[in-house]
């Protein structure tokens, strides 16, 4: 192992972190503008040209906000909870393939941080850790709303994780590999969404619940729970929860694009070596479209009632996802035998 390799890892990690935090800031802006347009408003347009400095203004405001730690809170866990929530959201992007191998000053650099052969399993494992942060936030606040909100969010997240896990199995079956790079390369000609339309829809619904987005936004059920598990949080600690939610939105959109929509590749086009650079931009375009879909859903659908949400997850999504896996498996085996 040489020093250049370690520097390559550090630089790539830093770039991914910058992309995700910058992406977080501008996803909030994208959401506010798009939501406003759908509701025939204009949205934030005063900070900078077309309001593009709005996220910067929000960030600066949050830094100078007073942060409260409630007197009866468990102080250590209260500070730790947002950190535990945001780290998995950032670390999950390590296996995200942004592009193929490019040549930088004579050095072959793959445009992903790590290509582990259990990539899909890695996503599932890391994504689950975020639940701890939410439960701890709810519990350590020592607030009834926060407690209930934390419990509800975590119960919802683990319920939809079953369907999400099964939706991952479809692309793995077709590609015959858990490595995300392999899965993308297998989609050179036909996107997996063609083979897995049901799996794709299950994946989209389950990820909405997984990142606590409308219509599954239980923590933000203001009428019943104030602000759920982050009721007591303010300032930059609140910003961390917000950051975790939006980074997970970007990450699950990126994984949906990678697993079902061909990732960094365009169908039927072989990239010549000098064009490998286009990969990240292709992926980014797909992410922006999928994020737009998530925002559109928020603008259109009302919130689920909690018992129906749980029933939907267990009684419809889980059996449907299981049936999808079995049907896919039978077809894959028959076609290959």
């Amino acid at each position, binding site marked *: 192992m040489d020093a250049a390799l370690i520097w390559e890892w550090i630089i790539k990690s830093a770039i991914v972190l910058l992309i995700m935090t910058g992406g977080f800031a501008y996803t909030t802006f994208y959401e506010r503008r798009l939501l406003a347009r759908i509701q025939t408003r204009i949205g934030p347009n005063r900070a900078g040209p077309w309001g593009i400095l709005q996220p910067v203004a929000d960030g600066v405001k949050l830094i100078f906000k007073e942060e409260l730690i409630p007197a009866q809170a468990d102080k250590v866990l209260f500070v730790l909870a947002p*950190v535990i929530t945001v780290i998995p959201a950032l670390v999950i992007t390590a296996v995200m393939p942004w592009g193929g191998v490019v040549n930088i000053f004579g050095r072959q650099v793959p445009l992903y941080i790590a290509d582990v052969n259990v990539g899909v399993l890695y996503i599932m494992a890391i994504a689950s850790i975020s639940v701890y942060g939410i439960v701890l936030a709810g519990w350590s606040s020592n607030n009834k709303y926060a407690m209930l909100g934390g419990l509800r969010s975590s119960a919802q997240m683990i319920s939809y994780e079953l369907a999400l896990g099964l939706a991952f199995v479809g692309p793995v079956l077709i590609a015959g590999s858990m490595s995300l790079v392999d899965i993308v390369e297998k989609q050179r000609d036909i996107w997996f969404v063609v083979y897995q339309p049901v799996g794709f829809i299950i994946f989209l619904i389950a990820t909405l619940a997984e990142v606590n987005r409308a219509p599954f936004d239980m923590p933000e059920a203001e009428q019943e729970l104030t602000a759920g598990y982050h009721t007591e949080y303010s300032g*930059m600690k609140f910003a961390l929860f917000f950051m975790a939610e939006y980074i997970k939105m970007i990450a699950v959109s990126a994984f949906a694009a990678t697993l079902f929509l061909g990732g960094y590749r365009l169908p039927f086009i072989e990239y010549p070596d000098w064009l490998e650079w286009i990969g990240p931009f292709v992926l980014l375009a797909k992410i922006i479209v999928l994020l737009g879909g998530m925002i559109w859903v928020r603008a259109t659908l009302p919130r689920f009632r909690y018992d129906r949400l749980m029933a939907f997850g267990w009684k419809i999504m889980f059996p449907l996802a299981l049936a999808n896996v079995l049907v896919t498996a039978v077809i894959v085996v028959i076609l290959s035998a």
Partner: protein
Amino acid sequence: MIPNEYLPIAVLFILATGLAALVIILGHAFGPRRPTARKLMPYESGMTPIGPGTRRIRVAFYMIAVDFILFDIEVVFFLPWAVYARELSYYGLLVIGIFTVLLLVGFIYAWKKGALEWE
């Protein structure tokens, strides 16, 4: 010894932890702090809180958690088979079929026992 392809993940983890710590420190360094007893009370929309904030939780949440642990681990077993489904062919399909039937028996039992009901 950690395999080589996991080391970059460790690098990203360290940098991500640093970023999260930096955000917390920024907030602590620049935010004003003028606490009063009333500000530090649990926020319950203006009502004075009655009783402790963390109290006993309804059992349905535990049922969901136990069901989740059972079924999620079973779901994870699908993944290694999915990678080798082509090589294992019909034999693999038969084995995973039996496995799925067992899983479904447990699922139907939990459903009929009312573990998935929220009322």
